[in-house]
């Protein structure tokens, strides 16, 4: 968003990059995960998120991980208070989930993920 260097694109699925063929824009998930250093919660959150996305959103998502220890100025923009915080930037509306994402069901509900048919 502001600077590219802070964002580490963890998972980029090539078919999803230019917009998937079948599904519209509204189906594509842009997720940003805020962490602060490699704490157990942060590590767990990254792993949990990747797993959920692979299960439910294969090919339709992109995750950026922002480490606030490196880029503290980014915390203000997304109103980050808790760590870890996952922000669903797309599709609208913006949603936030705080915690290490260990409860898969509530992550699915929180992100409003439709099960892949």
């Amino acid at each position, binding site marked *: 968003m502001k600077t590219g260097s802070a964002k580490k694109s963890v998972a980029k699925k090539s078919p999803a990059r230019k917009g998937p063929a079948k599904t519209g824009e509204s189906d594509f998930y842009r997720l940003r995960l805020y962490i602060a250093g490699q704490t157990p919660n942060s590590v767990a959150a990254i792993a949990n998120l990747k797993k959920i996305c692979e299960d439910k959103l294969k090919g339709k998502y992109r995750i950026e991980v922002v480490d606030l220890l490196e880029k503290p*100025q980014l915390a203000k923009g997304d109103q980050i208070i808790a760590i*870890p915080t996952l922000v669903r930037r797309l599709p609208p509306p913006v949603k*936030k989930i705080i915690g290490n994402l260990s409860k898969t069901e509530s992550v699915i509900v929180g992100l409003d993920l439709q099960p892949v048919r």
Partner: protein
Amino acid sequence: MLEYCESLNPGQTELNRRSAAMPRAKPKPKVARTLLAKVPTGIQGLDEITGGGLPKGRVTLVCGRAGCGKSLLAMEFLVHGAVQYGEPGVCMNFEETEEKLTANVASLGFDLRDLIKRKKLSVDYVSIDRSQIAETGEYNLEGLFIRLGHAVKTIKAKRVVLDSVEALFSGIADSAILRSELSRLFRWLEDQKLTAIVTGEAGANTLTRHGLEEYVADCVISLDHRVTEQISTRRLRIIKYRGTSHGTDEYPFLIDEDGISVVPITSLVLTHKALTDRVSAGIATLDEMMEGKGFFRGSSVLVTGTAGTGKSSLAANFASAACARGELCLYFTFEESPSQILRNMRSVGLNLEPWVRKRLLHFNAMRPTSTGLEGHLAVIHRLISQLRPSVVVIDPITNLVSISGSYDIKSMLVRLVDFLKMAQITSMFTNLTFAGDPQERTAAAVSSLMDTWIVLRDSKPNGRPRRELYVLKSRGMAHSREVRELIVSERGLELGIVLKDRMQATTAEGIGAVAAVE
């Protein structure tokens, strides 16, 4: 490590206090006195009652109900810090956006935008919308720490305001996490040697709704906004200030175009210096009645009398005499406008206008009901502090009585008289009494505070009405006890012949009234 510091500090202060209290055991007054460094708030009066400001490098809790002035106090602390004391500050605001906050304090003459541009101040609006947030699994509030830490580092802040951190309780469901994080936050602030104000909304039975006072050990200030008989008064009280002595009273404070001013009122001891030089009452013959020299400088004078006996004229002469000596006079009027007083005084041969033009005579006209007693006290206090007059006239105090009970007026006058004496200001209060009740109760209630009491009254011997004057008391001098006629004409005020006939009776009556009170 953190917990170690936390537990060490309170213990240490406790220990020092105890050793200071213990007699003969190697007294170390110097250590005890330098123990607590303080940071001035720059808020008029508050630094006086706290003995220098807020505890340096500690967290202070400011609590009170909605609209009591918490945020303003906190913002003044930051702005004064940035402007006057060279201490940049960070405001983490959980309630108002930067724009709103800027607009709000602009009305008090603070230019936040400029301060932010010059990196003296930083405002971070933290919004928490629970509807947007879901919680799953473990987390902490490191994000808040990072934001605050980043802001502090960017402008090298020394002061921090969290206003109002309680908003987090509505945004974060897991209160166990929140509470442990809050206590970590307050410890973090202290570790960073930041002087902080945390605000909190008053709860039903607790100081704050969410018990923030549990985490703040050093200083707690409570603000209050009370309405009695439709008149509101703001008050401030220091509930706790560890390791320092502080005033425990409720102090009235005022929010006006200059921000907050607190009135530090009763000093605990009567230490004002009694001056021996004298000031003229403005009427030569009245001076004569007081050893020919007039009032003591720094004393307080009460003038009572029924309607139309010349109280205001007497006060105006007193004021004019002060101006003629080149001294500054502050004239508070509660029933006439300044121009009305000028016109009326011209009719009795007194032209006050030159003094007004020379800026020696300052009028302040207020409706008694415009604010509560404490509000009046605050205004009087602030004006006196600004102008530093040597003479103050309050004409009349009776109208203030009408807005409150006599206990209140007495306590207000005690504070006022105390303050005036400390500042060595000669003051004159006029008080309307009613016919048939010559030593009216209020007059009696306040008279014990007064050094000099001049009584004016009407009488009609032989059907010819006349005004009479006598000095009922005047501490520290051999004053005349004679009753004299007060002659008011276009040539001014004058005292006529000694009225021998009724003298005995009046003095006895007056003394009786004083005895009844004292």
